């Protein structure tokens, strides 16, 4: 009987293995390759012709091929696959190293490797001649590996490792030009702000491990235990809220969103890869990977999530209107779009697919927009849109590709953003979450408006900068064209009219059936068109001051100061802590450390005195006494040494006689 069961199990395992193709079974190669290329670049990059990008590009390209192989398995209808190896065991807790490949992972690895490859290629042109060119590629590869490690992880510890490596890489890349104080400050701000979210997240992980009775870190086993109600609801709720802290930090949601706009201090390709397409998506991915926790935690937690997302969504979109720095416009846009994804997930099972579809499309068009902005910055040597204008003639490729990206962002049919945004609206309508539906629509309107403003100020009107801008080199325009093609193409994967294959890959519970609602699509398109029209009316010709400034008056000032949130943090948290900490440390320094040092010195001095006394009196005394006694004795004995041979002989004879007498007596 047992034998039969074992045979059946083996057969079942074999069957599961047959469903997963070679690429899925060896998905662990995908994160490994960029790590290897990072090490190779570090070791040999400077000596390689071209100074090192070749390793990263080849490795990421190979990873992209593997990722497409993984996705192919799911296109063919393959199921999830998990593979683990024991790492080590601590008491009852088995730590494992392993991969979990499901549809979500498959989509994520394709997005990450594709965008990363584009950024690797693009950076050849953008970073050309940089002082730390090779180092840039090292960190870029390392980052890609870390992100891929997060998406293929099957346990929370491994996920945390990748997560933290990403944090470090982000820090290093934001501060890539650390010679300027603002850049290094931005890097520190990003690192510390995300860390504030990471700490609760880590406790969330601990809570999950504790929930299984400290036996496993495996995500599948943990969520299964939670789904079967083996864990108390209070515990799950706490874990979900703590985990969401990590998302708030990494995906820059209110109130920890402040780091992302400042992170634009890094090189633009980095902004595209890390601060738009992938790393910030890791927070959303975290929610998706541990979605069971959120679902079991229930409505209240999901409501908190949706409130945070809604605030971020609209707040950030409005801020984007008042930015003059083209990268900051995109940064606030990223905040807003990430909030779209989080809000989508907060709608529960139905919103899961829609949220991730938006992540998927957004990664392509936001990377495209950032790289396009990078090309513009490269040409005019300024981030400020007041130095741009009229670039559509001198930079046609950049203009057309960015226009495609902008239309996708604004949500114009048939570009990618339209489909994903529409999907979110439909889900919000289906679940009856009217307030979120309104927020989505409002944000879509504002998004279209600031996108139009950005494109018009950059590419239309008269050129206001200096010199003669020229089109970027092929290494930069190539990725732009490819990303633009992707932006046009990926939308159809989720288009309900075309079967919405995306929802067959990425779903929670049961496959979500996407459907198309005409009136919703009409309303969202109307909102987007109104936004663009408003932008066209106000910004067709650049006016100084900004027309919105006159319209909004004091509100504009609030927007320019980013709702005073950064100032508030600075005044209420950073300065008090920093000042108190420095005052406290100063006090400790003055009193404790100096006290210890002085005390040690005083003690040493007192001890030295005692030792000196002992030295002078006891030890010197002993030495002197020894010398003195020896000297005196010698002085007395010397008189025996008269120099008279005959006197010696007398002593000798007397001695011999004396000895003779003594020995004869003794014998």
């Amino acid at each position: 009987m047992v034998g039969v069961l074992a045979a059946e199990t083996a057969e079942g395992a074999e069957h599961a293995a047959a469903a997963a193709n070679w690429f899925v079974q060896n998905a662990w190669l995908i994160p490994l390759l960029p790590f290897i290329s990072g090490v190779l670049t570090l070791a040999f990059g400077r000596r390689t012709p071209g100074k090192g990008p070749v390793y990263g590009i080849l490795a990421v390209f190979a990873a992209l091929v593997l990722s497409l192989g993984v996705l192919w398995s799911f296109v063919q209808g393959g199921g999830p696959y998990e593979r683990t190896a024991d790492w080590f065991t601590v008491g009852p807790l088995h730590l494992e190293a392993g991969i979990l490949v499901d549809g979500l992972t498959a989509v994520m690895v394709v997005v990450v490797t594709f965008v990363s490859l584009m950024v690797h290629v693009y950076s050849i042109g953008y970073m050309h001649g940089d002082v730390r060119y090779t180092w840039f590629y090292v960190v870029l590869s390392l980052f890609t590996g870390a992100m891929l490690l997060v998406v293929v992880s099957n346990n929370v510890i491994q996920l945390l490792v990748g997560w933290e490596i990403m944090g470090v890489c982000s820090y290093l890349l934001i501060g890539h030009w650390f010679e300027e104080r603002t850049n290094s400050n931005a890097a520190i701000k990003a690192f510390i702000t995300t860390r504030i979210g990471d700490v609760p997240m880590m406790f969330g992980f601990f809570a999950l491990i504790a929930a299984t009775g400290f036996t496993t870190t495996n995500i599948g086993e943990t969520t299964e235990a939670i789904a079967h109600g083996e864990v108390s609801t209070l515990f799950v709720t706490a874990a979900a809220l703590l985990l969401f802290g990590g998302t708030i930090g990494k995906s820059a949601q209110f109130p920890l969103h402040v780091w992302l706009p400042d992170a634009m201090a890094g090189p633009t390709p980095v902004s595209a890869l890390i601060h738009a397409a992938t790393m910030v998506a890791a927070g959303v991915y975290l929610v998706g990977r541990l979605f069971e926790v959120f679902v079991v935690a229930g409505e209240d937690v999901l409501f908190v999530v949706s409130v945070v997302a809604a605030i971020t969504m609209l707040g950030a979109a409005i801020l984007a209107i008042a930015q003059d720095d083209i990268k900051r416009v995109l940064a606030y846009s990223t905040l807003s779009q990430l909030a779209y994804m989080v809000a989508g997930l907060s709608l529960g099972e139905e919103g899961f697919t829609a949220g991730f579809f938006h992540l998927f499309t957004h990664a392509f068009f936001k990377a495209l927009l950032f790289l396009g902005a990078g090309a513009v910055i490269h040409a005019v040597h300024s981030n400020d849109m007041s130095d741009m204008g009229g670039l559509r003639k001198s930079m046609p490729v950049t203009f057309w590709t960015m226009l495609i990206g902008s239309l996708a962002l604004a949500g114009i049919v048939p570009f990618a953003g339209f489909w994903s945004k529409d999907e979110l609206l439909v889900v919000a309508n289906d679940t009856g979450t009217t307030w979120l539906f309104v927020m989505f629509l409002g944000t879509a309107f504002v998004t279209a408006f600031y996108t139009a403003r950005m494109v018009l100020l950059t590419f239309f009107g008269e050129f206001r900068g200096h010199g003669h801008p020229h089109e970027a080199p092929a290494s930069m325009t190539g990725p732009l064209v490819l990303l633009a093609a992707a932006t046009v193409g990926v939308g159809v994967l989720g288009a309900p009219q075309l079967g919405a294959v995306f929802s067959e890959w990425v779903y929670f519970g049961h496959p979500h059936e996407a459907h198309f609602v005409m009136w919703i699509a009409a309303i969202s398109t109307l909102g987007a068109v109104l936004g663009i029209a408003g932008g066209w009316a106000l910004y067709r010709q650049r006016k100084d001051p900004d027309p919105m400034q006159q319209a909004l008056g004091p509100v504009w000032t609030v927007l320019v100061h980013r709702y005073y949130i950064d100032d508030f943090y600075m005044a209420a948290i950073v300065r008090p802590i920093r000042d108190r900490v420095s005052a406290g440390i100063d006090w400790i320094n003055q009193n404790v450390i100096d006290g210890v040092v002085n005390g040690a010195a005083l003690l040493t001095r007192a001890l030295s005195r005692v030792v000196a006394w002992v030295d002078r009196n006891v030890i010197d005394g002993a030495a002197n006494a020894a010398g003195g006694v020896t000297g005196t004795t010698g002085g007395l004995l010397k008189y025996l040494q008269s120099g008279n041979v005959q006197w010696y002989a007398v002593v000798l004879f007397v001695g011999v006689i004396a000895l003779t007498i003594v020995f004869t007596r003794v014998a």
Partner: protein
Amino acid sequence: MIRLPLVLVFSALLFSAGVYGVLARRNAVMVLMAIELMLNAVNVNLIAFAAQLKDVGGQVFALFVIAVAAAEVGIGLAIVILLFRNRESINVDEVSLLKW
């Protein structure tokens, strides 16, 4: 055959004369001669006991002593000559430089 005690008494007298010479004479040559007397007193003893005990070992020792005495006198006289060249005197009392 001369009786052994007589020989021993003679030997003792000879040795005592030698000791006196070594301790009392000031002339270095005389001291050396006194040493020679002491050595020969020992030789007499050795021969006497060898004859008495019919053991040739005593005679062998006597021959050794004679050889050593010859060497010793050779060196001793050389020292005395050098001493005389430096000091124009061979009075052992005056040669007391090697002292404290």
